[in-house]
């Protein structure tokens, strides 16, 4: 009933709010991706938008900002990150006339039993698939050499990127004749999402030790790694970075217009956020559902344009992509026998 009213009478008056996770709205990653989707909806659908940044990353702080948005009339609230799980669990009961979108998580009471109410939709991304594709693309493009992985904090999304990437490289080595080596010591979590100095230093060490390409899923730490790679390329070395979450091609750009970003393992945050908003406006809010965005629905994948990948690579990756879609290849979302 509520939905009906909103949907029919004043669509464009929909007020969409977002509460940011740890990190800022400009993190070139999770928060920013989500926000860009909302902004896109603002531009194209004429909704009103607002993001709030909580003072801390506790459930209480999150709930407080959700309350602020709600009281200010923002009754469609997007929360990026698994850290919102318990907060959204409470909010969906407390604010029954509001709608919640939680990305990368499932509302639960602390016991990890998902409870997605009718006014909530939970969205998961198959980061492992995205990482897998990046791993495959990397391997095919470089053919041989050494790869590394730098993660930020050891959180599920980052871990899944990592595991997927490892599987992708292994898949290419086994099936596509590449020889990309991935050593245990070159797979690590730096421990923060903001220590650029450490990101640069670690990347430097890896490069010095023969690594040619590093997959970074580490926010600011990744930025440090990208900067290091840029310097090396300007010095004539050939090294690459694989970006994460969003297409980081621009971040890796050198003065000569080239980029050190080989490709990026994307979660189409902006896209999916936009879509859900659109669905809400169309009166088709997928309330109560847990959506998994993966290759099947183009929720994850590589950028559309990959200037650093050859035609050949792209077509091979596309084949793999199709197989993945068809379920012919399975990528695990668990560590299993993989590193870290």
């Amino acid at each position: 009933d509520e939905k009906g009213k909103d949907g029919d009478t004043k669509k464009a008056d929909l007020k969409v709010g977002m509460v940011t996770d740890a990190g800022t709205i400009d993190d070139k990653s999770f928060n920013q991706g989500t926000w860009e989707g909302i902004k896109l909806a603002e531009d194209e659908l004429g909704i009103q938008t607002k993001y709030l940044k909580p003072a801390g990353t506790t459930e209480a702080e999150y709930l407080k900002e959700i309350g602020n948005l709600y009281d200010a009339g923002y009754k469609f609230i997007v929360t990026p990150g698994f850290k919102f799980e318990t907060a959204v669990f409470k909010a969906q009961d407390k604010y029954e006339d509001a709608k919640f979108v939680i990305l990368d998580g499932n509302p639960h009471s602390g016991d990890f039993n998902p409870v997605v109410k009718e006014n909530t939709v939970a969205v998961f991304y198959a980061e492992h698939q995205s990482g897998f594709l990046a791993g495959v693309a990397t391997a095919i493009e470089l053919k041989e050499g050494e790869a590394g992985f730098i993660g930020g904090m050891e959180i599920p999304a980052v871990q899944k990127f990592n595991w997927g990437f490892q599987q992708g490289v292994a898949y290419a080595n086994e099936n596509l004749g590449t020889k990309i080596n991935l050593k245990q010591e070159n797979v690590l979590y730096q421990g923060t999402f903001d220590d650029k100095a450490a990101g640069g230093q670690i990347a430097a060490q890896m490069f010095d030790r023969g690594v040619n390409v590093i997959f970074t899923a580490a926010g600011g730490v990744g930025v440090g790694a990208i900067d290091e790679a840029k310097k090396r390329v300007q010095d004539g070395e050939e090294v690459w970075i694989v970006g994460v979450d969003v297409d980081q091609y621009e971040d890796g750009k050198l003065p000569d217009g080239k980029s050190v970003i080989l490709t990026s393992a994307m979660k189409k945050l902006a896209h999916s956020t936009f879509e859900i908003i659109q669905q809400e406006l169309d009166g088709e809010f997928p309330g109560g559902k847990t959506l998994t965005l993966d290759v099947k629905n183009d929720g994850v994948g590589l950028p559309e344009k990959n200037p650093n990948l050859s035609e050949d690579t792209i077509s091979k990756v596309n084949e793999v992509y199709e197989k993945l879609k068809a379920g012919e290849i399975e990528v695990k979302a668990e560590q299993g026998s993989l590193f870290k």
Partner: protein
Amino acid sequence: MRTTIVSLIAVLLGLIAGGLLMLFIGSNPIEGYSYLFQGALKNPERVGNMLATATPLVFTGLSVAFAFRTGLFNIGAPGQMLIGGLCATAIGLSFDMSRPMLLVVMVLAGFIGGALWAFIPGLLKAKFNVHEVVSTIMMNWIGYWTVYYVVPGYFKGEFLETESKQLPEAASLRVPFLSDMFQGSYINLGLFIAVVAVIVIGFIINKTTLGFELKAVGFNRDAAEYSGMRVNRNIILSMLISGGLAGLAGVAMYTGNASTMQIGIMPSQGFDGIAVALLGANAPIGVFFAAVFFGILYSGTGFMNAMTEIPPEIANTIIAIIIYFAATSVLIHRLIGKFSKKRSNSNDIAAKKGEI
């Protein structure tokens, strides 16, 4: 009285400066402030949340103020908070006792943890005259990394590397009667402990021989030594108490306002304690009100931000400016001071003249 006025002037100037900033970005300050106060006070839930936000600040403010009163500058509250919170969390996760018992032990553990973290700077100050500003900064980072590795190492959450396990309900400072009274706010027993701490610390400072000694040592180490007070012991003791209070801030923060410990975060409440203490003129009751004021600013900005285009960073900016005014209001103090001193002085001279 005079210090109260100075603090109020500082607050006023800070709010004016904040208003100017709002104007500068094209917003209406009156509107902004009205939403800010509404955001903190509009309904019982918001009041509860505001008080909960203020609770750790009361503790860290007390911690810094207590140290200040005894001549020490403890900027180690963040580290002490972390360790205090870690100790309380460890107890809460490891033991199965009756709830009251468990909570008491957790609070004690938090106090001891914070005290322990302050003990080292205290010892270094007493024995080697190492300036506590530097040593507490070092201890902050040591605390930060200790939590960083101990939490995932020993108290890892079920699915997460970056957080401790969730505390069981019995080990949480949140109690139904408070949550209900404040309509589901996360206000918790920490507030009561904070009020008790304000009273106890005020009592210690003003009414006991211990306070008498600690303050004497703070004001004049040489005179304290001369009169037979044990200076080194007092320095260490005062750091212990100060650290313990910061430890309690950690307890309130991690077992009341939150129910897990997250790694990789240096709690800003520790640094805010300096501002709170300064604004509260280092008096326990002043600290309490200053903490509440900061609580209002911090918890009201979200709503202001939601209702207007004013970014939330304005709260921090206002607080920072208030602190600068409070710091430089020495000028006002001085002027008033000089005035009254000169008067008593000339009386004195007049009296002397009469003598001969």
